[in-house]
């Protein structure tokens, strides 16, 4: 029966394809960009390049990364547009990315471009670690808002903080790697030891802590700024707090998959992805974009987020990920089980 369906599919495609494929190049683009933004990105790009059609394949960052790695020997994607830079670095170390310097890449902020020349990935925008703080629940409990990361270890917050689990969420890992790069490993571990005492749950997704704070399931959600702004627009009684020490961050980035059959079209897309026009498009949701001077303030977010971003070393983070996660699981996964 599966074979039957397969033949029917092939049959249908062979009828449909010649009519579309004549002048049009179709690009299979993998992405983790928010679902609401996809149509806008596609329309804006296709207006600039009517000869190329984007076919989105979208999923969350973790699923997308797992999918790309699983397809390592038989890649299905032409381009990745909008996936965490850390994930792209992982693909790069597997030799899966085609190095290419898009036209105009010089204009981008250096921290948004892969260190190697030619770069294997180029950034689009950033998401920055932030706290979502539920003012209603805090008032009920008589809590004062935290100003720094260090504040989160205060005993008054015991059981009121949620953060993403770094071993299953990219956002969780950017928090941990941010603390380590700011303070050094030793201080970061001792901070996390104390923080762990206050954590009520480690979630699997990076935006969930903020939404939990928004819904009052927690008071403080360690998350990033985007879901904070979104939850606030939806009516959540939260404040978005950027700790004064600075914040870890992650770039959303673009890369070409090595061995793509549509290399020219892929380059066209990546070229366009670094233009000022594209960056203005990213700015609709993201407060920090790769093209300097483009970003306008986003509703509910301060205008100086870029200043809070630490000097993030993606390579260090990628090369130490396995070791850090192993240690993290040893310290907190086992301890977080109920003591019976």
């Amino acid at each position, binding site marked *: 029966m599966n074979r039957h369906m397969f033949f029917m599919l092939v049959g249908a495609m062979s009828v449909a394809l010649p009519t579309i494929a004549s002048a049009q190049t179709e690009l299979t683009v993998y992405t983790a960009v928010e679902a609401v933004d996809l149509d806008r990105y596609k329309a804006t790009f296709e207006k600039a390049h009517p000869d190329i059609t984007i076919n989105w394949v979208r999923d969350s960052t973790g699923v997308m990364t797992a999918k790309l790695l699983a397809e390592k020997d038989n890649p299905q994607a032409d381009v990745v547009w909008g996936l965490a830079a850390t994930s792209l670095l992982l693909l790069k170390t597997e030799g899966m990315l085609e190095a290419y310097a898009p036209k105009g890449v010089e204009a981008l902020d250096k921290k948004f471009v892969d260190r*190697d020349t030619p770069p294997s990935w180029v950034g689009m925008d950033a998401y920055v670690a932030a706290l979502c703080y539920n003012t209603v629940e805090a008032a009920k409990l008589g809590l004062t808002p935290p100003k720094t990361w260090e504040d989160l270890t205060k005993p008054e917050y015991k059981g009121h903080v949620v953060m993403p*689990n770094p071993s299953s969420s990219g956002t969780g890992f950017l928090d941990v790697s941010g603390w380590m790069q700011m303070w050094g490993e030793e201080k970061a571990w001792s901070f996390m030891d104390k923080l762990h005492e206050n954590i009520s749950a480690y979630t699997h997704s990076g935006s969930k802590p903020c939404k939990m704070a928004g819904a009052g399931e927690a008071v403080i959600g360690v998350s990033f700024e985007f879901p904070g702004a979104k939850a606030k627009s939806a009516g959540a009684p939260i404040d978005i707090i950027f700790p004064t020490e600075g914040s870890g961050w992650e770039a959303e980035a673009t890369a070409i998959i090595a061995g793509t059959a549509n290399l020219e079209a892929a380059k066209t897309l990546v070229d366009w992805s670094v233009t000022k026009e594209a960056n203005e498009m990213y700015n609709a949701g993201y407060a920090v974009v790769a093209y300097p001077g483009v970003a306008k303030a986003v509703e509910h977010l301060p205008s100086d987020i870029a200043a809070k971003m630490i000097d993030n070393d993606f390579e260090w983070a990628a090369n130490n990920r396995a070791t850090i996660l192993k240690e993290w*699981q040893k310290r907190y*996964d086992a301890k977080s089980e109920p003591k019976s």
Partner: protein
Amino acid sequence: MSLAIDYAPPGKRLRQQTSRDDRVKLGFMAVIGLYLIVALGAPLFVMLSKSLSTYRFDLAAFEFQVSDETGKTWADAVTAEALNRDLGVVTEKDLATNSDGRLAATKFFPEFNFRSPVHYRIRGTADGAAFLVGSTLEKGIEWREYDSATFRRVVLRPASTFGIENFKTYFSTPALARSIYNSVLMASISTVVTVSIAFALAYALTRSCMPLKGLFRGILTIPILVPSLLPGIALVYLFGNQGVFKDWLLGYSIYGPIGIVIGSVFFTLPHAFLIILTALSVADARHYEAAASLKASKWRTFTTVTVPGARYGLVSAAFVVFTLVITDFGLPKVIGGQYGMLAVDIYKQVIGQQNFEMGAVVSVILLVPAVLAFVVDRRMQKRQVALLSARAVPYAPKPSGRRDSLCFAFSCLVSLFVLGMIAMCQIAALVKFWPYDLTLTTKNFAFDLMDGGGWAAYANSIKLALLTAIFGSVIVFAGAYMVEKADGFRLGRGVFHFLAMMPMAVPGMVLGLAYIFFFNNPANPLSSIYGTMTILVVCTVTHFYTVAHLTALTALKQMDPEFESVGASLKQPFHRLFFRVTLPVCLPAILNIGIYLFVNAMTTVSAVVFLYSTDTKLASVAVLNMDDAGDIAPAAAMGMMIFYTNVVAKLLHAAVSRGLLTRTQAWR
């Protein structure tokens, strides 16, 4: 039936006729057997080998050369292994790693300083040896030279080998190994609670004269129609930190064991209830009369007549519940909090850390309790003997005020629990922003604006459910027919039956992961179905094969083998008999198989969570993903859409069955 053929006179034509039929049947059986091997056996085998695929730093595969201060004169080449022998910086334990492992090359040079003018060379001694300079992958046996500042960025990559290291790592990681204990504990507690409640309910329905039995029966089967994620979501709204009845938990958190047990009881209740109900409904009134005439107390009658009569049903129900809870993934994902469970660990390893090997290891471990439960249950079933003899008198309960009102009260209580959970989800789906803005809205149904796949996912789910129901019924019934009605090839039929029983013991997660390894391999000629609706249909049919197979077998067993003998003696080919007699007679059973597959295809998460692609996102997976992203209200809304769809499907099924029954089953 074989008697008639084996001892038939050696009439030449007759034998040829049957043997040609048998060849056709054998061919059919081989095709469906092959289907089960491709869709079940081979993927599981590939997964098993994946769990044995390990990563290890092979120090002998890397050679270094160090220059002097001028950067021109080079010392002798030396392997990392030799360096480590002198220095002992890397222990044997550190060498075992995962696919993401990295080992800094500078570890082997204690005097290393990134500001020094010393240069370093590195090469592999074999082609496969890989290392990274920063994040650039280098391979091969060419010498490569780096200054100290660059050499700081060189890290070695592990080589892939075979071994049981993954299992060693698993059992030496307390957080992972702990999940085995947690899963077994949760499954055991849920089993005891569910089976007790289900028994009480079945008792109330069969041994009392309480009113509204039909209504209770309907309400108690509701949880089958919703994904197991939904009770999790309902519990968050009922008992979460902003929950309606938060105080009932006396300060304990719903996220964790408490939530897992309550949710598990909810979604396994109908399975246990239906099995025990069947077991209790066959009762011989003479046993009760005997007990009464021996002046046995009510309690003694209960423990010596009622319970033993249902013991096989109880055992069966217990194993079904145990297997369901230990293999379920949706519920602990939503409500489990930090409480590690095996099925969630697979997801965390694969999606969270892209550690496929460790995912395979957890899968293999998850197979063990599920297979054990299955084997024990099969053993017990074989010992079951017919309870009802031809002279049995059907038991009819007599009214008893106290017992009946007790039964009624208990049934009401459980029904309230079931309806309350569903109602909570419906309310949550309609509220604007829980708990701060309780105005009603339909915006949570605007799925296209959320993660998860939007309304297209809902349409895909219906398509999957229909395809699964149609193709699944055909494959399952044809397979069962071959097992039951074909003559000879005892061995082939035995193997086939075994294959058909296997899916029951394979958790959905494990099956899904095995499918990735097996089908997403360019060397596999079937790899083109990866990422299509076809693979989802194949996976879902296979996942729910066993129960459907048993239903078909039961229906076929009710048909007298004389039909075949008569057909053969009238020189009718088997397909005529099949379409004229067997199929119409078994039509109700086939419809039951169809609706069973439909409902399960709508609600399944675990089997398909690794297999869907962007074009084939499913409603049940959307519930998972929306909850994961924190959009709990839309997740509840999508869960309710699945529920309503299944209710409609059930009603349609009931109407069609009734219509068909009057037309085709008049002879009964």
